[in-house]
């Protein structure tokens, strides 16, 4: 057993830290604190992404022959961790899940044009899975792609299509066969957002995250836009969601916040003698946050180790998703208690709280039902891990 990063992995971490500290210049940081660019899409974001493409920092998991880095899962985890610490809205879904799938299963056109431009940091995808009546039960989605001339005609409506307001393409799941079991009749398409039949309306949310309702009205796409075999989209969706799940609960952002807040608590006076971290319950809150963070880090490390050594079990992945998403909510609550009333005030004099803690707490709940809801993850643990009977 050896539960620590290797020298090389530690070196990578340090290298990334240094790289990001130079990439995140004043202009980019200021754009990142503007609510309209919380999810990226601004000019500085686009600039930074191209620089990362030029410097070879996109396509970590991609094979070298595609111009990727062929990182191991542990190295990928470190990359995600370090970038999440900075708060930069890196488009992981595009670069690490949609991109590699197009590179592997896309048509020649898609491989040549789309995959390469993702690697250059020039193309962003939004994920078009959820529909008003297909959330947790995603396989019941109704958006249709019917054969038309040499390609397909797409009609339907999606909900919660994040980034669709600036994405170049939608990674769209559509029904291509109504006659078979619902999982078996779904295919994946690359749908350009500059098509006249595409439109969207914004949905504002509690955490100031803007997502979108997207509409597909007689959109014609050629068969080059189909990714993978016809009617085999479900496998692509599930492998994409599995990849996404671990990135969602990366311990980096909470760890970063924990250290920043602890340092702040140690120097923030509460009276003439004491600092904030002298208060007993504040100490206890910090210790609880620390304890959960250690566990989360180990859970995630064990999972990437499992991926690297091909011993990953389904239960480990579900456990990580549940533990992480539920821990975040408790950790943010305890952090907010420590800074008390100041944590709900947007005040420039307390910039850490201002820009991160408060907003992170408001967006945290999305993770417990998004990316495969925790109830279903618990079903998986009891079924696959404990060999208990199926619940439905």
């Amino acid at each position, binding site marked *: 057993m050896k539960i620590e990063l290797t020298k090389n992995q530690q070196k990578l971490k340090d290298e990334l830290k240094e790289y990001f500290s130079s990439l995140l210049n004043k202009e980019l940081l200021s754009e990142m604190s503007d609510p309209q660019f919380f999810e990226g899409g601004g000019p500085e974001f686009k600039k930074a992404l191209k620089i990362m493409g030029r410097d070879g920092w996109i396509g970590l998991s991609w094979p070298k022959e595609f111009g990727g880095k062929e990182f191991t899962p542990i190295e990928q985890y470190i990359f995600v961790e370090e970038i999440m610490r900075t708060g930069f809205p890196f488009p992981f879904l595009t670069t690490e899940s949609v991109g590699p799938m197009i590179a592997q299963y896309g048509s020649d056109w898609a491989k040549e044009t789309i995959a390469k431009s993702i690697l250059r940091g020039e193309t962003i995808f939004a994920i078009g899975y*959820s529909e008003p009546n297909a959330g947790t039960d995603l396989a*019941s989605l109704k958006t249709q792609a019917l054969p038309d001339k040499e390609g397909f005609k797409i009609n339907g409506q999606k909900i919660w299509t994040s980034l669709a307001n600036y994405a170049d393409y939608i990674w769209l799941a559509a029904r291509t066969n109504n006659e078979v079991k619902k999982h078996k009749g779904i295919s994946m398409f690359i749908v350009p957002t500059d098509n006249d039949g595409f439109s969207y309306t914004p949905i504002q949310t*509690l955490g100031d995250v803007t997502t979108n309702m997207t509409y597909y009205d007689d959109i014609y796409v050629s068969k080059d836009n189909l990714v993978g075999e016809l009617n085999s989209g479900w496998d692509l969706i599930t492998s994409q969601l599995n990849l996404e799940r671990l990135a969602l609960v990366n311990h980096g952002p909470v760890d970063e916040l924990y250290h920043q807040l602890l340092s702040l608590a140690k120097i923030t006076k509460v009276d003439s003698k004491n600092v904030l971290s002298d*208060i007993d319950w504040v100490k206890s809150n910090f210790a609880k946050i620390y304890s959960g963070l250690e566990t989360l880090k180990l859970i995630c490390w064990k999972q990437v180790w499992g991926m690297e050594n091909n011993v990953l079990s389904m239960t480990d992945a579900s456990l990580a998703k549940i533990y992480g998403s539920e821990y975040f909510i408790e950790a943010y609550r305890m952090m907010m208690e420590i800074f008390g009333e100041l944590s709900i*005030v947007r005040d420039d004099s307390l910039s850490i709280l201002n820009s991160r803690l408060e907003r992170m707490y408001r967006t945290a*709940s999305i993770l417990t039902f998004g990316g495969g809801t925790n109830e279903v993850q618990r079903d998986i643990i009891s079924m696959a891990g404990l060999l208990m009977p199926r619940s439905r």
Partner: protein
Amino acid sequence: MDFSSSSEEKLIRESLKKLLESFSSEDYLKKFDSHRYDPALLSELIDNGFLVDQDTNKINFDVIKILSEELGYSNSPLNPSALVSDVLITLQESSFKGLSEILKDLLSNKLYSYTSALNEPLNFEIESPKVNGKLSNKGYELSGTKILSYNLDIAKKALISFITDDGVYLALIETDQLEITTLDVTSKAPYSKLNLDGVIVSKESIINKSGEGLYLLKDIYARRVLIQASLARGMVLKMLELTAAYTSEREQFDRPIGSFQAVSHRAANMFIDHQELDLNLQQASYLYSSGSDLENQILNLKYITGNVLHRTSYAAQHLHGGMGVAKEYPLWRYCLSAKEHEIINGNSSSALEALSKNITLNQ
């Protein structure tokens, strides 16, 4: 023993529900999303005798609690606590002489002209103010800051607390010369910050006799917790009702999601949480109105209020899926208000520690 509510209480609740109907529709609430205060609602409540009893010219704290519950439930943009409970009831209890003038002003102008400024940054116990008062020949010269003072920017006078060599004092001071900054709070409630450095408080504006300040402030804290718990009770009930209704309607896998045990059990936990809050609120309210010592019950209630608001707010969001965070559905406002009340006037962790000290050291 009797856990039932009186017919008078039921009547008050019914008429409040009716009145608040027109102050809680989606279109109405939207108008206050960037500044959650409606003077018209205050005026309406005063006109209908819900703040000050029109026959006796007194404030009935039991009515204020019911009002708070209903305001929590409807999420209407008003918190009467600072004006009515902190200022008016405290003046009613103290040796202060000018209360009838203030009531006259309130009843004729119907404005939030009186408020309190008691909370301080990183001070989790409002009974122990850190704003300091140094005795000088003109009165007390203050140093320190107050935060989250409700409607301070529109009030004429504010009740402030400070500590001196001679104990805690409360003073009702004019606001026109004060340095007031409005704060951008997530819930968009109308809070301000007050810099008291160099402010002189004249002896005439002090409302308590020597030695009486701490007692009054402890009472204010008790009422604040009771009001917060009442607001919370209303909010939690509404979040629970929304969740039960939504999960009964929303279908996934060809059946209502509420028919999945994981969903129905979590909703049932919200119900248990609501009961926990409700029973402890009733107990503390009873002790308060019977004049008993209730320091531990108040700390316990604050602890429970924070926990229940936190748990039910997240459970409701989770059980709604994406709809729980979308601003086109009413839940999100409740979640922001829940966090506000969880974190103001101390919090669950600070209350639990104070309670633990009380029960292991003092008693």
